[in-house]
């Protein structure tokens, strides 16, 4: 580890109604990976947005290379050599990779208003080469997987000769293989003396990649510790200010027998290929696989959100025709999208309205007037039952934390009397404390006899939560494992079990294959 590059001290920041940071501090050395952890709302992102010029601090000092600096905007941060890679990727999908890398500072021709496209491409190519990235600068960003887009963002950040690189949840959308690739790049940068700030909720990664860990809680600095020697449980208790025992779920003693939902031979193009499985009453069925394996597609097909080419779905042994989400809801199926904000919630509406949204008919009086007291009571009931932390049922959902938003969605589907719940990445972007609550909730639901399909890219989560695990790869089901026999290794083996006829498939959707695309490219050449 080198000298201290960044020293933030006494940082204070308030937003209307929230004191986001109070006397916070952070220190970064050259050539270290410094993880910044804390629950949602702890102030990690705010802290880093101040460092990268997106927010202005109310008080405190930032020293950069020993000198006090003022960082009024992102441009100023870039000039100092500080770049931030945001959680939502910030590429322009319609532009090529090279155009994305050089946006805002394009090399110009002699005439100042003309772009020097040749130089843009050449410079980007040498940048990629220096990072050992096999990417074509002339490809449009939209045609890349999320993982590769992230690599492009890193390349873009490095092209500023950044000495400080801030990464906000870089692995949230990546699969295990892609995370390896990312770590390779991060280590490479560390060798070159770049100081890396690494914000993540995935604590198991921190010990792998980081040198030091700074913990924040409620806008305060808690401690900075050495990653090599600290226990994960210790980090967690620093984050939440109390000790959480990550208990394993209690599986129902008798294996459940009654099949609630059965899928037979589902097909849709190259995305879903001959998918058959069944879901039993009171069971949590895990769906594991790499990005692009087709898990979300299967869920959406069963829920009627996307059409299928062939196959049938049976509920309680009877074939049903689900042509739309409305049909699915009528058949007792609820789908909790991984992107809650976009598909699961009406963010601007209050908790009460969201809870009754999927089952409005139940609350209508004789002449079609909503029975207000009934909706209120129902919402209050679920706020209690799911321990949703909200000042009142009239609170707007957008003001709740990620974990509590997820609970509101669950409440919505419980109100709609769904017996089959499909969870797509239920804990994505949710902090540790809330995560274990969601786990407990899933467990309780299963105990009560609800049947749950849980799609997750986090293997420890799948292993911990599922009674059975279905593994998918390239649109097929490549195996089914019982909770007792599954390990991370056995799942990964099935998740990478390719069919060998990849080359026969018409270029499956412009490299959407994600984690599998390396093999695909190899065969198509």
């Amino acid at each position, binding site marked *: 580890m080198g000298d201290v590059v960044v020293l933030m001290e006494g940082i204070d920041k308030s937003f209307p109604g929230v004191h986001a940071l109070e006397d916070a501090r952070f220190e970064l050395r050259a050539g270290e990976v410094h993880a910044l952890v804390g629950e949602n709302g702890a102030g990690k992102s705010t802290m880093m947005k101040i460092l990268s010029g997106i927010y202005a601090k109310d008080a405190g000092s930032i020293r950069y290379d020993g000198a006090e600096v003022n960082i009024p905007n992102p441009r100023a941060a870039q000039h100092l050599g500080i770049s931030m890679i945001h959680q939502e990727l910030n590429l322009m999908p319609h532009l090529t990779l090279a155009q994305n890398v050089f946006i805002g500072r394009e090399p110009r021709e002699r005439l100042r208003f003309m772009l020097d496209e040749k130089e843009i491409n050449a410079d980007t190519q040498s940048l990629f080469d220096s990072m050992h990235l096999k990417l074509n600068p002339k490809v449009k960003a939209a045609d890349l997987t999320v993982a590769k887009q992230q690599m492009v963002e890193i390349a873009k950040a490095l092209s500023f000769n950044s000495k400080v690189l801030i990464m906000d949840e870089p692995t949230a959308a990546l699969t295990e293989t892609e995370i390896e690739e990312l770590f390779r790049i991060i280590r490479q940068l560390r060798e070159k003396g770049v100081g890396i700030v690494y914000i993540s909720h995935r604590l198991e990664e921190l010990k792998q990649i980081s040198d030091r860990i700074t913990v924040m809680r409620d806008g305060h600095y808690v401690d900075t510790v050495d990653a090599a020697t600290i226990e994960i449980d210790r980090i967690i208790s620093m984050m939440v200010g109390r000790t959480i025992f990550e208990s394993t779920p209690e599986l129902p003693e008798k294996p459940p027998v009654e099949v609630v939902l059965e899928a037979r031979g589902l097909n849709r193009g190259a995305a879903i290929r001959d998918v058959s499985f069944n879901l039993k009453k009171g069971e949590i069925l895990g769906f594991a696989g790499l990005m*692009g394996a087709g898990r979300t597609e299967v869920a959406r097909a069963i829920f009627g959100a996307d059409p299928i080419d062939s196959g049938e779905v049976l509920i309680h042994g009877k074939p049903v025709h689900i042509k739309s989400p409305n049909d699915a809801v009528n058949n007792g199926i609820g789908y909790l999208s991984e992107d809650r904000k976009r598909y699961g919630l009406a963010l601007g509406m209050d908790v009460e309205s969201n809870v009754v949204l999927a089952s409005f008919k139940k609350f209508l009086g004789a002449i079609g007037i909503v029975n207000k007291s009934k909706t209120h009571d129902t919402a209050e009931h679920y706020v209690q039952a799911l321990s949703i932390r909200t000042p009142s049922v009239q609170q707007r959902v957008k003001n709740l934390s990620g974990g509590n938003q997820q609970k509101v969605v669950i409440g919505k589907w419980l109100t709609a009397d769904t017996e089959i719940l499909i969870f797509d990445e239920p804990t994505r972007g949710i902090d540790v404390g809330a995560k274990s609550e969601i786990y407990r909730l899933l467990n309780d639901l299963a105990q009560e006899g609800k049947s749950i399909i849980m799609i997750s890219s986090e293997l420890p989560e799948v292993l911990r939560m599922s009674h059975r695990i279905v593994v998918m790869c390239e649109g097929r089901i490549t195996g089914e494992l019982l909770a007792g026999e599954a390990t991370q290794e056995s799942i990964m083996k099935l998740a990478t079990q390719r069919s060998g006829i990849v080359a026969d498939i018409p270029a499956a959707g412009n490299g959407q294959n994600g984690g599998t695309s390396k093999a695909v490219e190899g065969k198509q050449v």
Partner: protein
Amino acid sequence: MAVMDTTSASTGKAVRSSGAMQKLLAFGGLIVLFIIFSLLSPAFRTFENMQGIVLATAVNGVLALGVTFVIISGGIDLSIGTVMTLSAVVVGLVAGDDKAGFPIYLGVLVGLLTGGFAGAINGTIISRMNVPPFIATLGMMMIARGLSLVLAEVKPIYFNNLPGFRDIMMGSVLGAVVPGMQVPNAVFILFGAALVAAFILAKTVLGRYDVAIGSNEEATRLSGVNVASWKTAIYALCGLFAGLGGVMIASRLNSAQPALGVGYELDAIAAVVIGGTSLSGGEGTILGTIIGAFIISTLTNGLRILNVPQEWQMVVTGVIVILAVYMDIIRRRRQG
């Protein structure tokens, strides 16, 4: 593809290399229209009628070129029709009969600047005051219409004392050089404007930031691009094209008609959309817009020659607009 879904969600639209395909479809459609009308009517396939089609395309085409930039940036400009009229009226005030009596080139210059100025105001209202483009330009549409009528005192302004003015559009520089080739200048103005627009879009910083803003405005801002200024420039450019349209229509009619202009913006937007430019921003081409403009004027011309009443011509054009966009949507869905 769990994760890919998140990306397309965050960018808000499916992005594929679909522009080229849509252009090809549109171009094919244009050829088919020409073949059908030529078979149905000998009058359609005459040189004079072809000239007529090009003349009819010129003004709408130039308006469409300008609004293409705005639509690529993810915005919309409803004011181009009446700003065109306002520019024409200003040309009249500066150089028309019984008005200020300045030379015509000054009139043309001030007319162009009027358009650019109105566009810059649109852009400023949109980017600095955060008024949605639809509302801001709807307001400007009304303002420009009102101002046109006020400034012209609700009467047409003629250019009878400036015989050269009409030649800007209707004269033929080519005919003077090559006898027999009486191709009106309007054609060259249209194609010249299209070349300039294509150059701006493909080769200049303005074009690059136009696409970038339409593709992901927030990311463009975070990359250090001064989005507000560039947006203003984009609307100003669109206004400049509307100003050019104003000069062209005044020349063609040999008068500034202050009541004209409403509805022109929709024809122009229709041409852009038929040409494959996405209303959600980020993609679009100049060639597509030109083809789109020709499809609309060919359709109008052909149907008129076949004695289809004007009311029905509008119905057909409307159907074509919806069909063009629907075909694009189907194709995207297949690409998935």
